[in-house]
């Protein structure tokens, strides 16, 4: 029987009169690495803290390893959590930080020594055990925070934006280390982040949250390639997807999309569309390209941002702004006119009233 390992059923949370989570339903399998993403304030940390037992539950259920944990205390839930601030005990050495939880649980001393030694060797902390947190670099503190989680030998790891205080380079390194650690230990992991790249690269499955609700759950590329609604389409991807509003028009047996300024863009055959139907026409910046074809869309370039490995461009299509992304070096400069082509096989069409994918 394939039961899920962590399960949320109709979970809600209120702070005072403000509803923060509106009925979360989610199933996470054993050994899965699930990443929660969403804008600031959408309730990611709250969900994680409820899982950890640090926040109460207003209604619904959380179960971990087939056991409803609503009334189980944090230390008995079989979880370990890594905080954004690391939350190390500043007055204790690294060794004491690692062993604090084990001592609280009255673990025999020799087992404590063994756990610490093994966690320290996994995380390359062995040389640092006698130091205080103030004597460590940001990356080292991060490792200690992970070590403290590790020695608890949890059934579920909870990470709340663990890398956001590190500089860009260290972050990439730690990202790989956390992923490698997961592949080695296979511990079920719930990981909260702001960072899309972290979400895309680390996750087995991504959960996109917005305003206390789950918008979409799926494998990273699946969500990227097929966002189910406008929110997900807009949220994932950097630079963000172009979302243009307009309507469907008939041109001698063919369907086209007409922008508010009268310019028409091609539509693929889609029997679901009616003439005059209002739609949102979504196209990712990397699916808009320069063309030599004289029928291409006439634009003026307004901004050229070379990022090294790719170039971000902004173009003006008779008053409507388009973002495009080119992996080739672009010689063009702002003010130049150009012609663009849209890859119609990569379109995302949405209903403007429901926001749902058509």
């Amino acid at each position, binding site marked *: 029987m394939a039961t899920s390992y962590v399960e949320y059923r109709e979970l809600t949370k209120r702070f005072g009169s403000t509803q923060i989570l509106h009925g979360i339903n989610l199933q996470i399998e054993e050994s899965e690495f699930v990443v929660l993403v969403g804008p600031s304030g959408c309730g990611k940390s709250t969900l994680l803290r409820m899982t950890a037992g640090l926040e109460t539950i207003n209604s619904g259920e959380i179960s971990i390893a087939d056991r409803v944990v609503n009334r189980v205390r944090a230390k008995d839930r079989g*979880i370990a959590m890594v905080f954004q601030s*690391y*939350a190390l005990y500043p007055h204790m050495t690294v060794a004491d930080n690692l062993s*604090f939880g084990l001592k609280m649980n009255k673990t025999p001393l020799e087992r404590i020594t063994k756990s610490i030694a093994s966690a320290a060797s996994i995380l390359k902390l062995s040389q640092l055990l006698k130091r*205080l947190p103030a004597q460590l670099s940001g990356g080292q503190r991060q490792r200690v925070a992970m070590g403290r989680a590790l020695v608890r030998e949890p059934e579920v790891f909870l990470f709340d934006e663990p890398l956001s205080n590190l500089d860009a380079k260290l972050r990439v390194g730690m990202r790989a280390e956390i992923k490698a650690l997961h592949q080695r230990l296979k511990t079920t992991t719930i990981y909260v982040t702001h960072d899309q790249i972290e979400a895309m690269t680390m996750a087995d499955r991504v959960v996109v949250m917005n305003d206390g609700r789950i918008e979409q759950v799926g494998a990273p590329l699946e969500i990227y390639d097929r966002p189910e609604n406008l929110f997900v389409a807009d949220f994932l991807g950097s630079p963000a997807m172009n979302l243009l509003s307009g309507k469907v028009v008939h041109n001698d047996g063919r369907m086209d999309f007409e922008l508010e300024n009268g310019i028409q863009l091609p539509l693929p055959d889609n029997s679901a569309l009616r003439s005059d139907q209002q739609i949102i026409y979504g196209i990712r910046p990397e699916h808009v390209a320069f063309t030599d074809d004289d029928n291409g869309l006439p634009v003026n370039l307004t901004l050229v941002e070379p990022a090294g490995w790719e170039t971000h461009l902004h173009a003006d299509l008779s008053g409507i702004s388009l973002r495009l992304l080119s992996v080739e070096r672009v010689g063009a400069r702002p003010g130049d006119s150009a012609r663009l082509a849209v890859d119609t096989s990569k379109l995302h069409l949405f209903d403007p009233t429901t926001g749902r994918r058509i």
Partner: protein
Amino acid sequence: MPSLTKTSNNSTTARERIADLALATVPYLMVIPGLIFVVGVLGYAVFGGFVLSVHATDMFLNKTFVGLQNYISVFNDPRFQASLLRTIVFVVLSITLGIVMSMVFALTLYHVGFARRFFRGMSLVPYFVSGIAAAVMFRFVFTTSGGFVNYVLQQIGLPTAAWLGDPYLAFMVAVLANCWFMVPFATLILLGGLQTVDRDIYDAATIDGASGIQMFFQITIPMIKPMLGVSLIWVSYISFSTFDIIFALTAGGPQRATEVVSMYMYRIAFLQLDFGQGAVLMVVLLSFNTVMSLFYLYYFVLADRRLEKEASP
């Protein structure tokens, strides 16, 4: 617009260097008058006290050098010995009770957010009304006939007591009044300390399985150690030097039960007009306060392990 910085070369001109220097010294210049004032007044009083303590004075303030004679007579006076012992008991009781009360109040306020602002304003009131007023209030509360405490005891059918007439009870009332005076400020200091502790640390300790008591002794106390040290300095300084409260509450009585060193000093210096011996007592109080403060500073503030920067070998 002409640029304000020289673009011709990177080396600074003499004029710019002088301007930089002037800019750098301004903060120090502004501190100096205050510093001179503080050092001057304090230094003069302390130095003058030391000088006075090795002299004998008469009614016209004529001084004669007597060496350590004043010290010898003060230390040999049984009344001084008793008052010193009493002061030590008074200070130990006051510190214990005062710090426990401050900690309980600070923890309460920390958890009951809404009262915090109100209390912060209220907590300075005792220092506006002065120790004398506090003592007068305590007299009203503890007066034997018609005092509030005896009234309440009577109403609930318990025996009443002569609070300020009995030596032991009067001493305890003095300790209480002293705590009433110093606890609010100590509470503020501790509350400030509690508020600096990152809540995530408590969350981490909760997950690690620490109970409330373990959390208090193993996380909270070590983390607010510097503030604990500062409030200890405050509490023990006030208790050692307390004068106005006891003066207005019991005036040292009954039967000298509350005659602490500061009361004794008042008696020697201002009633017997022996300024030399009075100065000896000032030196005694100053030494006690200094030693205690240095002790707290060393063990609570400077030894705070979080401040250690270099790795131990």
